[in-house]
């Protein structure tokens, strides 16, 4: 995953602010100025005569090998672009999901004539761009370099080397990319949305996972390339400062030798929306926002009779800057979200509808209510004249402005060719927009908007949100998925009769060595190592039970973090400075000074609750929720058999929102009659779990008081 974000980070010193419309408040009057004489200012001027719209021309021919050539001449600037588009049917990748995309990326990593290094150097030398994908290639350059570019482009498309070393490098990059987006709620939503809309029986429903990427072999990629990269299903779209006949000559020269062959085509069953609303949930423990997608497949193509009406209708519902129904309701009126929109996407095989927003946990259910309300409203109520006019004008203008770019004309030509549309399709587009009536909008809404047979996908905090949304499901039950798309069956484990939170905590204390042995522990001094990325940090923890605690973490000899609690006062130190602790943070550190917290919840005002019996890593564990008098609760898991604590989940505020931290305890060893975990694994904030290993632990030794001193 390329961090182009960075480049944008630099550009962001230019703060691009989309226009914000505030509430409509009556004008406050200001001082009258001289320009009261200039009352032409008091009204918007009217428009001039509408300019004639020039659609832009293109020429189209077919080469002997079946390659279709589309040329859009535009001599304004001395540049030219070439798009090679391989129009193959999507295929099912199944256990090797992701190999088709990898094939595309592989093409540019070497040919029979050139290494990657040579390709990159040659492209950069002429100041060009060249990229490849599973659907072909794209290149652009100044016109004097066009033959060099075509030489390179045809080389990568026609003679890829499929180099093993480059393949391994690419695999690594893909895995990094998946790992980096694993916790990204929008990436999760996108994948699961595809899955529930289209199912695994359809190529649109597949997405790569770490496992599937590992399964990919070079053979998969070679085989895909050899089967599908053929000229007879492909287009070469040439745009820019070039004459059509020269383009034809060059196309024949560089791509004429590309041999045609039969290419298998594939048909799939048409995915259907669910019979009744289907609530699907992906848990992101600790999330404070829900990503909501109300979504289902639709049968909508560019060539559908009501395509234009459907677009107008969708813009009224979920488009516009702030004028769409969804924005007006969920943002302007209710302030549930920063943005609520809808998309209605046509596709030659199967399209989809998606109404979406990210909202805070507490209003997830209310937001769904409002989404469904607006979806019903547009089905039942005719749109107001004002809204319809605004959307039509906006679409009109947007279309007209898009004609400034010759690429627009090229893409239109490509669509007409691929989908067999009438040649005047785009010319008529504007006329059609103009002719759309309120009745057309209503009819399109009734065809395409389905508030009663939608997938309601939520990526969010299961503990806080799931219970409140099951009633939206037609069967009042939620289907849970994990990020990889596997259904997660909520544990059917029954808590045995007589087991309570008290018995669970007592068993834990017994397993540790018993309350008496624990009470004999006066002080603990331990040192541990932590592997963070490729860095090793040293940790030292000192406790004088019950009221002194100090922990430092060092890296490269420097103290990276330090926390100290001393009899009512607490301090935290980081390279950014020192801070005296108060409130919840102080209370939490105070509890740490007891060390064996489970003996002290009552007196500290904590409440505990036995939530469930769950499976953790194949073994049963009791899930206990621990809530402090104020602040965030945490969740503890105790192995049902041994009684020992094996996991702790807590949530902390990060700069990007809450972060869930998971601590797994293992390898308990006895010291002075009491068990301590020698190994801990911390996961959550980073892509790889952090291993913590206790190096040394001493109990009831003297600890120098300056360890706990707090300097102000």
């Amino acid at each position, binding site marked *: 995953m390329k961090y182009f974000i960075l480049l944008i*980070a630099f550009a962001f010193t230019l703060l*691009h602010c989309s226009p914000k*419309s*505030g509430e409509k408040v009556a004008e406050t009057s200001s001082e009258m100025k001289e320009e009261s004489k200039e009352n032409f200012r008091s009204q918007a001027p*009217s428009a*001039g005569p509408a*300019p004639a719209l020039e659609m832009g021309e293109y020429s189209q021919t077919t080469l002997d090998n079946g390659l279709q050539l589309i040329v859009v001449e535009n001599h304004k600037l001395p540049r030219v672009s070439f798009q090679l588009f391989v129009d193959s049917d999507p295929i099912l990748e199944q256990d090797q999901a992701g190999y088709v995309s990898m094939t595309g990326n592989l093409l540019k990593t070497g040919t029979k004539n050139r290494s990657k290094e040579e390709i990159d*150097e040659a492209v950069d030398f002429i100041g060009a761009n060249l990229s490849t994908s599973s659907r072909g290639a794209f290149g652009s350059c100044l016109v004097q370099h066009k033959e060099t570019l075509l030489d390179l482009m045809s080389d990568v498309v026609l003679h890829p080397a499929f180099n093993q070393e480059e393949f391994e490098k690419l695999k690594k990059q893909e895995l990094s990319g998946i790992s980096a987006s694993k916790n990204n709620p929008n990436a999760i939503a996108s994948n699961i949305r595809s899955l529930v809309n289209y199912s695994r029986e359809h190529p649109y429903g597949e997405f790569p996972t770490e496992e599937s990427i590992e399964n990919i072999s070079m053979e998969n990629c070679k085989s895909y390339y050899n089967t599908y990269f053929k000229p007879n299903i492909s287009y070469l779209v040439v745009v820019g400062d070039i004459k059509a006949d020269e383009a034809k000559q060059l196309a024949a020269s560089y791509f004429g030798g590309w041999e045609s062959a039969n290419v298998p085509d594939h048909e799939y069953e048409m995915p259907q929306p669910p019979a009744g609303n289907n609530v699907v949930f992906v848990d992101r423990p600790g999330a404070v926002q829900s990503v909501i997608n109300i979504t289902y497949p639709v049968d909508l193509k560019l060539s559908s009779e009501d395509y234009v009406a459907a677009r107008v209708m969708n813009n009224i519902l979920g488009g516009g800057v702030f004028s769409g129904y969804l924005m007006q309701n969920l943002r302007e009126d209710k302030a549930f979200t920063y943005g609520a929109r809808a998309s209605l996407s046509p596709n030659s095989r199967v399209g989809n509808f998606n109404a979406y927003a990210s909202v805070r946990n507490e209003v997830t259910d209310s937001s769904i209510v409002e989404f469904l309300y607006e979806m019903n409203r547009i089905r039942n109520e005719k749109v107001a004249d004002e809204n319809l006019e605004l959307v039509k004008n906006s679409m009109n*203008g947007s279309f007209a402005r898009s004609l400034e770019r010759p690429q627009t004309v090229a893409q239109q030509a490509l669509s007409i060719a691929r989908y067999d549309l009438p040649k005047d399709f785009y010319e008529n587009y504007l006329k059609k927009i103009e002719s759309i009536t309120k009745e057309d909008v209503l009819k399109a809404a009734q065809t395409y908007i389905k508030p009663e047979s939608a997938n309601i996908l939520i990526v969010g905090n299961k503990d806080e949100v799931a219970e409140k949304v099951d009633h939206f499901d037609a069967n009042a039950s939620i289907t849970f998925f994990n990020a990889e798309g596997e259904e997660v069956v909520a544990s059917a484990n029954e808590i045995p009769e007589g087991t309570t939170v008290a018995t669970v905590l007592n068993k834990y204390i017994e397993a540790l060595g018993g309350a008496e042995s624990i009470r004999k522990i006066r002080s603990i001094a331990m040192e541990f190592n932590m592997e963070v990325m490729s860095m090793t940090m040293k940790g030292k923890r000192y406790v004088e039970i019950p009221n002194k605690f100090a922990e430092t973490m060092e890296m490269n000899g420097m103290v*990276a973090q330090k926390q100290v609690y001393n009899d009512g006062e607490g301090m935290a130190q980081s390279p950014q400075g020192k801070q005296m602790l108060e409130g919840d943070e102080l209370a939490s550190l105070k509890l740490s000074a007891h060390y064996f917290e489970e003996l002290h919840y009552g007196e500290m005002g904590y409440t505990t609750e036995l939530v469930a019996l769950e499976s953790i890593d194949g073994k049963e564990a009791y899930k206990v929720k621990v809530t402090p008098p104020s602040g965030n609760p945490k969740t503890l898991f105790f192995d049902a058999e041994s009684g020992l604590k094996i996991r702790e989940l807590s949530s902390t505020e990060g700069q990007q929102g809450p972060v869930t931290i998971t601590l797994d305890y293992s390898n308990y060893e006895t010291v002075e009659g009491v068990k301590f975990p020698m190994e801990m694994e911390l996961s959550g904030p980073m892509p790889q779990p952090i291993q913590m290993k206790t190096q040394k632990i001493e109990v009831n030794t003297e600890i120098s008081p300056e360890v706990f001193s707090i300097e102000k």
Partner: protein
Amino acid sequence: MFLLTAFGLISAIQAQMTDVEFEQYTLDNGLEVILHQDKSAPVVAVSVMYHVGSKNEDTDRTGFAHFFEHLLFEGTENIERGEFDKYVERAGGTLNANTSFDRTYYYELLPANQLELGLWLESERMLHAVVDEVGIETQRSVVKEEKRQRVDNQPYGTVMQETFSRAFQKHPYQWMPIGSMEHLDAASEEDYKNFYETFYVPNNAVLSIAGNLDIEQAKKWVEKYFGTIPRGDNEIPTPELNEPSLSREIRDTIFDEIQLPAVIQAYRIPEQTHPDYYALDLLATVLSGGESSRMYKRIVDDEQLALAVFNFAFGLEHYGLSINYGIANMGVDPSNLEAVMDEEVEKVKNELITEREYQKLINQKESQFVSQNASMAGIAENLATYHMFHGDANLINDIIQKYRSVSREDIRRVAQEYLNQDRRVVLYYLPKPADTQ
């Protein structure tokens, strides 16, 4: 040599083809007007660039310039709150604005027959935008949300802030355009009115229009809507060039909610109009322009040390920074990444780049140059920018010459002169250490 001559000749011919023609004049009230006509375009871009940015702010009133960008969508004496963008949408157009350290820029992209609407809208803003408590209150919370979303909640979102605040200690470049929320809260209605009256005046602005227009009609409308806007009375304050060079290396570590460490190095360089700026920009291309560039090839491709790495010559009106930025791959020590980044910089200091590499740079720049004038929106902004900062709008056609006149020796020299390890800011962005509690 022949190769270079051939390229030069072709470029010269291309220059003729792509010259952007325009008319330019100044109104009595000081407003600079620039018009570019293109009858083949279906659009017209109407824009105003005000010569005010975050560097014009007081040290205890930062964030004003950007805040005003928001306020100027709120409404004017003749445009009700909430209506400004509706006028544009209804007319089939789109609009936006942006603020930087040095200027604030507003533009509308409209169908060709709506030029007068665009002029009316921008004249309304300039003449009598409504700056009152209601608008100020509304936008305060909006801007706070914006800061949270764009800066505080973004991985590496604070990099620029942390870099600039160390590279500049006296000059206003030390703070970001978004400014301080406390300052915005503390400001009074008087402060805001004063800012508007000082900076939002015709003699501090450029009106730049490009697209399908009729020159004579456009001039008439410009006179009608902008001619009677009074010149500003107040002196327009500009900060002193008071920042000394860095005298040492400033090195710091910042812990952030990120997954991969990042290394940022910043070197002080001259302002964007200085002749050395162009050499430094070409140096950036040597280091990171394209996959065959020195840093990309070695660091991202061959040694897989980073997910991304680049050098960028950030030129502003008063000063500039040359910034190296790398994001380490999983398991890579940032100091290892830094060492290799430094090595590549040293190479450029010690050896001239090859003739072929030089030609590559020029070719890359020429491609960029042609593309930057591909749209009416781009042309309008470039005309305004070249006039405002270089005093010469015709650089829209000539700027490439400044690059062509940089030699290989210049590139080596500027690397030696400005990219000095003893005088720079170095930041490590590291993932926050584990919280074991």
